[in-house]
Structures are given as structure tokens and as C-alpha cells.
């Protein structure tokens, strides 16, 4: 029997063969940075975001919401873009340039808030849904009901009942959105939970924390990142929609929805169309960038693409 001796358990020895020098994040970043279009829009959106948030502190900026008069005290309505008013003024004499950036701040804030809420609640609920078998039925039935109702209708109903405001829009957008994230997470957890390599890890005594971080998380990150990147443009476009149907933010809060909506009145007057074109251009730039970055990151962060 002395041919076999019980080896003492030494974690560092056990890990020696396991470490392949692979790092999830390094690999994700490498693949993402190879995607030229993705990188272009990433740089673009970072620049745009930075600019949006520092714009009020730059020199020679006018104030949003303020109504401008000329020297004679006459309101400067519908001034075409010029040296002083870079994007012109709107029909009540507000500076469109500063309004557009103030509006972008509001809209992005809504987008980010929705994305974060959806991710936080979605991940928690999704992991519970996947792991706790007793909850599966309740969550699945809830999902089956909510999945049948378009988010737009929920948005309309909630905004109709509640007082218009930033909070209302955030609540209305995230009240059903989290379930979609949770569902994605749940599916991944169920698929991955009992995979052979996780079983093997458990048998080898790998701590649960490590299984979650190294084996499960990479798959979840791509799902969450994709959902978050898509939640932002969706929130921005939904804000435009609720404003259009008259349930959006009050005019005292500049937002892209408000700006686009007041621009719609000018759609048939060719000379005033700049009031619609500027906000829509900034808005489209934001949504297209997030859409492309979301797709590029989803590809890069999917561990299936991490093969050398």
C-alpha cells in the first residue's frame, strides 16, 4: 500500500497547471481595440460625453433656458446660426447650442440611470432566478406575462398616471426592463451552472466565489454590457416618444425630447429647420455610437471569441 501516499492539498500546486496566462479583460480589450469601427465610435462617444458635461464651464458659453434680447430689448427669436449663436436661437429666443447640450445631459442622465437600475436589479433577480429553483416558476410566469406587453405601452400608461418628470420616465422605463436583463442572466446561469468544467471546479474544491468570478462572470459580463449599451439609446428614443405624445418633461427641463418636439413645429419651414436638425443630429450620433459600441463590445466580451 505504500505505493500510494495521500498528497497534501496545496492550492498553489493545484493552480499551477490551471494558469494559462489568460486574462478575461485583457483579451476582451484586445479584441475590442482591433475593431476599427467600434474604436472610432468609442473615441467619439467619450469625446462627446466629456464635452457634454464640461460644456457649461467652457469660456464663451451662453446659458440654457435664458431668453436673449438684442440691444433694443427685442427678443432674438429664430436667429439663424451665426458667430454669436452657434446653433441659432429658437422661437422664444433661447440659445440652441447651450440648450442642445443641456438637453443631451438630461437625456443621457435618464439613459444611464435606467441602464444602471436595470443592471443592478436585473443581475440580482437573474442570479436568484437561475440558482433558486423554487423561484423559477414565479419569475418565469411573471416574465411570460410582461414579455407579451410592449414596453412602449407600459411607458405610456405609467407616464399617463404619474406626474411628468425625470423620475417618472426613469421609473416607467426600468419597471419592466429589468426583467429582460434578469431573463438573459438566468438563461446563462442555468446553462453554465452544471457545465462539466464547473462541476470539475466544484469537485476540485474551488471556492464558490472563484467559480462565480472566473467561470460564470465572463459570460454574464458580455450580456450585461450589451444590455446596458442598448438601454441608453432606447431610453433616449423613448424620451423623445413620450414627449411627442405630451407626457414628457416640462419645458423648463431641457431634454433632447423637448428640443426635437419643438423642432417638429418647424418641419415645414425650410429656413427654420436648423432647430430640428441640430438636436436630431446630436441625438442620432449618441444613439448610433452606443448601438455600435454595444455590438462591438458584445462580440469582444463573448468568451467564445477568445480563442487564439
Amino acid at each position, binding site marked *: 500500500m505504500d505505493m500510494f501516499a495521500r498528497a497534501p492539498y496545496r492550492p498553489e500546486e493545484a493552480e499551477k497547471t490551471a494558469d494559462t496566462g489568460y486574462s478575461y479583460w485583457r483579451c476582451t480589450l484586445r479584441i475590442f481595440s482591433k475593431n476599427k469601427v467600434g474604436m472610432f465610435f468609442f473615441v467619439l462617444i467619450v469625446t462627446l460625453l466629456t464635452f457634454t458635461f464640461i460644456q457649461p464651464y467652457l469660456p464663451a458659453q451662453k446659458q440654457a433656458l435664458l431668453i436673449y434680447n438684442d440691444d433694443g430689448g427685442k427678443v432674438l427669436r429664430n436667429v439663424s446660426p451665426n458667430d454669436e449663436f452657434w446653433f441659432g436661437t429658437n422661437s422664444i429666443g433661447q440659445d440652441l447650442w447651450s440648450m442642445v447640450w443641456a438637453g443631451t445631459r438630461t437625456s443621457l442622465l435618464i439613459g444611464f440611470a435606467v441602464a444602471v437600475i436595470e443592471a443592478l436589479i436585473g443581475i440580482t433577480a437573474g442570479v436568484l432566478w437561475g440558482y433558486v429553483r423554487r423561484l423559477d416558476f414565479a419569475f418565469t410566469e411573471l416574465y411570460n406575462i410582461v414579455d407579451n406587453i410592449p414596453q412602449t405601452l407600459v411607458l405610456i400608461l405609467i407616464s399617463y398616471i404619474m406626474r411628468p418628470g425625470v423620475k417618472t420616465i426613469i421609473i416607467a422605463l426600468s419597471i419592466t426592463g429589468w426583467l429582460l436583463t434578469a431573463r438573459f442572466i438566468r438563461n446563462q446561469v442555468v446553462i453554465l451552472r452544471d457545465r462539466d468544467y464547473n462541476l470539475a471546479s466544484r469537485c476540485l474544491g474551488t471556492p464558490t466565489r472563484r467559480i462565480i468570478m472566473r467561470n460564470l462572470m465572463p459570460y454574464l459580463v458580455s450580456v450585461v454590457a450589451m444590455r446596458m449599451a442598448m438601454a441608453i439609446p432606447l431610453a433616449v428614443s423613448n424620451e423623445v416618444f413620450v414627449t411627442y405624445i405630451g407626457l414628457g418633461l416640462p419645458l423648463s427641463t431641457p431634454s433632447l425630447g423637448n428640443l426635437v418636439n419643438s423642432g417638429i413645429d418647424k418641419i415645414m419651414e425650410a429656413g427654420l429647420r436648423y432647430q430640428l436638425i441640430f438636436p436630431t443630429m446630436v441625438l442620432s450620433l449618441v444613439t448610433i455610437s452606443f448601438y*455600435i459600441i454595444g455590438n462591438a463590445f458584445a462580440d469582444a466580451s463573448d468568451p467564445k471569441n477568445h480563442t487564439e
Partner: protein
Amino acid sequence: MARYILKRMLRSLITLVIVVSAVFLLLRLMPVEGYFNNYDKLTSTQIKVGLMNQGLDKPVMVQLANFWKQILKGDLGVSNRYRINYPISKVIASKMPVSLKFGGLAFMISMALGLPLGILMSKSARGKSRLKLGDKLGTLFVVMIQGVPVAIYTLFILMFGTSLLNMFMRIPTLFNADNWRSWILPVTALSMGNLALYAMWLRRFMVDESSKDYVQLARAKGVPPAEISRRHIFRNAMIPLVQYFPTSVVAVLMGSLYVESLFSVPGMGGLLVDVIKRQDNTMVQALVLVYSALSILGVLVGDILMALLDPRVSFGNKGGTR
């Protein structure tokens, strides 16, 4: 199979029951102004009488029960502001055909143009040319449509489409259901989303399918490429496309809210936007219910179609939708 369909229908029915009740209860949270045409001028006694006449003074659960009795008879109540004391079901009956024609046309256009676009893109993607220009242009179009919100590109179609079309023909300034020229722009706007969706997924599925073993075999046997494309690749690529049917039905329904209202198409979508602005509670309630019912139906039909078309979907006890 029959069991699956029956079960799936039952689930839709339960969903509908829950949605109807939830919408009704949620709208009871609204201030009662929306149930009167001239609330500001009424005395408190008149308001009380008005509420009593509409049965709104009873406990909420009794109201819900009454509402259900009413709905089962096909009665959606009366409008209070849009058209005073006019049955809502009659309003909807007059608007529904326009919306159905509008949505149906948009659906057909998306199919008729989206599928060929997808085929062309996949041909270009699999082609020998290094540039793959067709595929790149198509992808650019898909990204533009999916990245830019519907609300925005519809505005651009309205803005530039009108002047562009006016170069070839006179399109009426106001929407006129009897003049086919009026339909061009709104139908284009409504069909764009699904057109891009179909093109994108068909391209993806055809590219995936073309590297499968059975395609290689057909090629090795000497089947002409055109026939491989048509008989093998296209047919198999269409199957997974069916799963996007519910999404596209919902997209048309929700898109029509905005597009109808913007182009003043006299359908249900424009009506919903209109009654929201007027805060006509009973109308909002009825229209939200009609739209929920239509989307539930759309998702149901999509799931059943998927089950019928794809023999690989299994009908175990867990149900096919998982």
C-alpha cells in the same frame, strides 16, 4: 403539438385577463377630471352625480367586476372628452380598418424588400470580391435604421421625403386615405424598422447556413450554386427568422402610434396620442387594452408559427418557448 398550442393559447388568455385588470386598476389612480368633459365648471354635487352615473363611486373591486361584465359583452364604455357620450367600440370600429391597412401594407413592404436585401447582402458577403461593397452598404443601412430612433428617422422621411416626392408627383398636403400617394411616406416610415430587421437576420442566417455540411455536400455533388442558394440555404435560413415575427408585429403596432399621429393618418395610433393629450381616461383605457390584446395575439401567432414551421422545436412538458 395540439397540446402545446392549446397550452400556449391558455397562457395568452391568462395574460390578457391580468393585463385588462391591471390597466383598469392603474387608471383608477388617475384624477377623476378625465371622466368629465367640463370638470372645472361643475359643482361638487354634479361631479358626484356624474361619478355615480358612470359607476365610479363604488368600491374598486366592484367596478372591476362591472368592467369585466361590460367587456365580455364587447362594450368598451363611452368616451367623455373625445366625442361626448359616444360608444368607444364604434370609434375604434371606424378607425381600425385604416390602421390594419396601414400596418398590413408596411408589413408586406418590409417582407418584399427586406428579404431580397438580406439575400443580396449574404451573396455579397459570400462572394469572391474582396470589397464586398453590397454587404457593406446594406450593413450601413441596417445600422442607420437600428441605431437612429424611429421617432427621428420618421421625421427625416417626412421632411425630405415630401420635397423629394413632390418632384415627381403632387402629394396631398393633408393625408387623404383615398389618394394612394398619401400612403407612400407613412408606409415607408413604418416599414423601415422591420425591413432592416429582416435583412440583417436573413443575411446572418444565410451566411451561417452556407458553411454547413449539407451545403458542402450539395456543392460537391455539383448542384448549381443558384439552386443551392434557393433550395437549401434560403429555406433553412427562413426558419429561425420566424422567431422575429412577434417582435416585428409589436414594432409595427408601436411604430404606428407615432407614425400615424405624425402623418395624421386617421387610425387608432393617432387616436391614442390624441386622447392622451386630451386626458380622456376611458378612451386611453380602451385603446391601451386594444393594443395590448393585439400584441398578445401577435406574440401568440408568432410562437405557434414557429412551432409549426420548425420541426426541431420540441414539445416536451417544459413547453417550446423556453
